């Protein structure tokens, strides 16, 4: 009884906490969008304002007319590369995961152990050798350099293997009785039953690749081959503190499409992210 009497009061505190958290999380984003529509004298006004008094597109116009800023191209590069990368990871990892989940073959234990051991090695160890390889096979400044080196995603194999092992064997045995090949079982039985896991992994690796900064900085130098994070680095280095309006407009341009996609597919994205984080359970 005591608990119910104190609960309304407790909920007030709870809502206050949640609303303050929401403001802390959301305010920087509102400020970024608001100020990207302001003249420079409004941006540095004290006290600061969030809603532009005289809205202007001048920052965006400047952004699109600058020769060394190619934000639409960078956005396209980022989305294209991340999509191609995710597709490659899902294909390559699901094939390998099926072998580990269902087939018996010599070297299985050793290989899986070797894969897991490499999770411990930070990716920076492979950075310079892979850069040198990209240079030697003339992949620098191409989409190839941005897509292929990370495709052997051990985490992806692990996640999908866990999921595939949970699929009832009877379904696969029935397909084999009907004359399906191994690949037929993988393609017609296992993959259709695993769309949730495949989409979850896809979202996870898409976001990781989309946000990668170090690798694109190393392997791209031509402006039109930059991705959003690497391109913003060029922009920030050149205009960082000189032209806040321009930099904030670029940040707005780079993040609003992503935020819209996030809000539309939030249910799927949050579920997928949770699922990958929990190792497919």
């Amino acid at each position, binding site marked *: 009884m005591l608990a119910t009497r104190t609960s309304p009061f407790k909920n007030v505190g709870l809502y206050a906490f949640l609303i303050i958290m929401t403001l802390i999380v959301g305010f920087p984003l509102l*400020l970024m969008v608001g100020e990207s529509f302001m003249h420079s004298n409004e941006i540095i006004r004290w006290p600061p304002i969030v809603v532009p008094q005289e809205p202007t597109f001048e920052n965006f116009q400047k952004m699109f007319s600058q020769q060394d800023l190619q934000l639409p191209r960078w956005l396209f590069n980022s989305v294209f590369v991340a999509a191609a990368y995710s597709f490659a990871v899902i294909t390559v990892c699901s094939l390998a995961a099926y072998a580990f989940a269902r087939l018996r073959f010599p070297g299985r234990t050793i290989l899986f152990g070797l894969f897991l051991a490499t999770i411990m090695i930070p990716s920076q160890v492979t950075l310079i050798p892979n850069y040198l390889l990209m240079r030697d096979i003339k992949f620098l400044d191409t989409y190839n350099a941005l897509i292929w080196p990370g495709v052997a995603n051990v985490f992806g194999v692990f996640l999908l293997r866990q999921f595939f092992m949970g699929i009832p064997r009877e379904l696969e045995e029935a397909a084999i009785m009907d004359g399906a090949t191994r690949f037929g079982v993988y393609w017609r039985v296992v993959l259709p039953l695993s769309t949730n896991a495949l989409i979850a992994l896809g979202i996870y690796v898409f976001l990781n690749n989309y946000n990668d900064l170090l690798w694109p900085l190393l392997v791209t130098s031509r402006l039109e081959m930059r991705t959003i994070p690497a391109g*913003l680095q060029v922009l920030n280095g050149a205009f960082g503190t000189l032209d806040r309006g321009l930099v904030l407009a670029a940040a707005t341009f780079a993040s609003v499409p992503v935020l819209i996609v996030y809000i539309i597919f939030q249910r799927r994205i949050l579920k997928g992210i949770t699922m990958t984080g929990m190792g497919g359970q």
Partner: protein
Amino acid sequence: MAQAIQTLPRERIAPRIKRERWTPGRRREAIAAYLFLAPFLFFFLIFVVRAVIQGVNVSFYDWNVLAKSHDWIGLKNFEALLSDPLWWTSLRNTAIFAVLTVGGTTIVALTAALAVNQPIRARDFFRIVFYAPGVLSVGVVGIIWNWMLDREFGVVNYGLSLFGISKVSWLSSADLVLPSLSLVTIWWGFGFPMLLFLAGMQAIPEQIYEAARIDGANARRMFFNITLPLLRPTLLFVTVTQFIAQFQVFGQPLFITNGGPGQASTTVIMYLYQQAVRYLHAGYASAIAIGLAIIMITLTLLQFIFIGRRGESN
């Protein structure tokens, strides 16, 4: 990774296979398996196995990126590293940043998960908002916060001035710069561990709480005696993976402070990047990468042993 270790014993049945007969059916199965594995192995051998071996190899050379030939210098790169003050500074900065960020992220994520897990209105809304910064590129995060933490015109200092607090040098003071970058990173990244804690909390059976309530336990006791102990696997997973991720911090200092003031926020990966890109010292940069790898693997194993033990003693 927590899951990885739990499932390893399952693999122990494999040696039994050796004693079985090598029938045509088994051979066909093995061939099929390697065909399924072939694409993955192709990429794995080139971009992981070969790269790790070459990474170790390069670290024994005076390897300039542009030079045609390279001199083998044995352990000289590692000797230079051990007496390189910038290496030690960057390592110290990285360690401070990682500890602050992992601690802060875990606490904020756990608190947020607890709040969102209550039977309240609009819990989906709060969940969506709290994860939102996680989809932003580090560049966007850097641009926003470099401006918000500006000493003269930044919103944060304006907010503090309303409470009579004078201007704080968030990014230009050597003492404050790492905590500032850490706060930015917590803002950016607490959503993911929050989702994991939420999933962990929802997996705890409601009956346990009911039983505790009948025994007269209050909310605080239920949190410390039920929720927290049952969240231990998630907690282990979050702290270990967060630690690995935060030790590799690069984008936030690059965008927000460029490693400054002085070298106060230069991290190990930033230093590696400078050596490789600005000075083209591939050999020395590889030695930095291997030094970092050794430290990270050691710390990860220690974390497993430490947190794993504490779990058993309870």
